[in-house]
């Protein structure tokens, strides 16, 4: 399934990379060291096609930070990392004063904040570039078996389209890969694409 033109995909990738840059600077400020974040690839899937293999989430368990947003189009936005990665990221963010075995206690709230920063940055860059305004809920973090979390995401949303952003996150030279997933209804996707086309025609 790929109703997006190359130009549309490039534009989305560009928009999200601007968001990633914003998120990286916020994260650097918190970590006190350089954090790099980029979105190398954006892909569109049918929700029903999504599983752990497609997303190459090879961990047993995955952590997901979710925010629901609304505006000219509505979507659930979710940041996904394998739990192992999530723990490493939290450890890197908290610095060496925390032992890796103690990280579990902080995983929930620290991952919530990390997701909040990345999701907000992507949403705000989308809002700025496409000249629209978006409202968002507060982030919720859930962690569980990968297939369970993924099937929950797909069924709960009842939204047929998934925009999947590949995310590269580097903290203290430690590279992690994750995903940012937008779940959209067909009408929301149409609305998003209409905004993108308007943006393209302006430049």
């Amino acid at each position: 399934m790929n109703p997006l033109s190359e130009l549309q995909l490039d534009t989305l990738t560009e928009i999200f990379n601007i968001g990633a840059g914003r998120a990286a600077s916020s994260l650097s400020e918190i970590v006190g060291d350089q954090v790099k974040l980029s979105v190398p690839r954006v892909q569109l899937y049918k929700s029903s096609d999504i599983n752990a293999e497609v997303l190459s989430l090879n961990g047993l368990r995955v952590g997901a930070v979710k925010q629901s947003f609304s505006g000219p189009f509505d979507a659930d936005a979710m940041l996904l990392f394998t739990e192992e990665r999530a723990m490493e990221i939290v450890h890197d963010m908290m610095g060496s004063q925390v032992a890796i075995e103690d990280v579990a206690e902080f995983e929930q709230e620290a991952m919530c904040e990390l997701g909040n920063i990345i999701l907000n940055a992507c949403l705000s860059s989308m809002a700025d570039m496409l000249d629209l305004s978006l409202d968002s809920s507060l982030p919720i973090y859930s962690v569980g078996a990968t297939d369970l979390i993924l099937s929950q995401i797909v069924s709960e949303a009842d939204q047929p389209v998934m925009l999947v952003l590949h995310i590269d996150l580097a903290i203290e030279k430690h590279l992690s890969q994750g995903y940012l997933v937008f779940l959209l209804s067909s009408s929301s996707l149409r609305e998003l694409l209409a905004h993108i086309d308007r943006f393209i025609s302006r430049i």
Partner: protein
Amino acid sequence: MNFRPDYHTSIWEEIWDAVKLGLILIDSEGKVLLWNDWVAEHSGIPAEFASNNSLESLFPGGLSAPFKTAIKNALSHKLPIILSNALHRSPLPIYPLPITQHEQKRMQQSITITPICVSGKEHLCMIQIADASISVKREGVLKSHSERLSKEATTDGLTGAYNRRFFDERFAAEFGRAQRQNIPLSLIMLDVDYFKRYNDHYGHPAGDKILVAVVTALKAQLNRPTDVVVRYGGEEFAVILPDAEVDGGRIIAEKLRVAVADLSIPHCESKVADHITVSVGIAAYQPGTSCDATCLLKAADAALYDAKHNGRNCVRHLTSAEFSPSGLANEA
């Protein structure tokens, strides 16, 4: 939310001030519109003073950089933001009560910043400050509990030595490491001589004291943190000596025997001395030999048996070059 019309708007102020949470409302310029009692109490800044001022002028130099960025982002992007306690600890200069004059540590905080839209145009920003010290404290308590529980699960209640459960795990792990890294491993087994007679003559409480004294004496002879003393059962103890060859192990074993004898605890029922003594067996694993963990354990046991049957209050040894998994069966 809907209130009956006979409720006045002043009820909002009442609720605002009754909340056990810090609530600050700022306008799109960052000026304070509302400042509840909780914030006034914990910051020492009264609401009248805070009103219409920016947070930066109210807390000069006191706001963390990520907090300032978060407020700026919340106002410009109108998206909700959280600042977790895990990553920020204390972004605002607010303190536990009562606020004293002298140096005080900032309160542990969890902060939520939510954009609020008034009649579709003006964007305000609400800052909620929750006191995270209770959960931080709870985490600390849980952590010390789990440390205590794991200590209890691996320690012998009477003597404070490690228990058999710990031994099984540690011995298997150390043996695996010795095999992988091609390094020797020594295992000492020792037993208090004529302990049953001691118990019968002096009573069990006195016997218990002997076990405690023996463990203390053994521990005092071991310098490396990786050398561990285990109560293997009854009056039998084991000492794991990683990276120790049989010669080094024998020296330690002899030191342990002497240390117990030097306690000079009278034992009138002993047939080998007039004081408490131990018999010691030691077996060493030599890299490259076909010995497994069970076989090393049997060898140390056999060496102890040997010491028991050769006069007690002495040290006997075996190396894995001298025993094989099959050969030992006869000896033990």
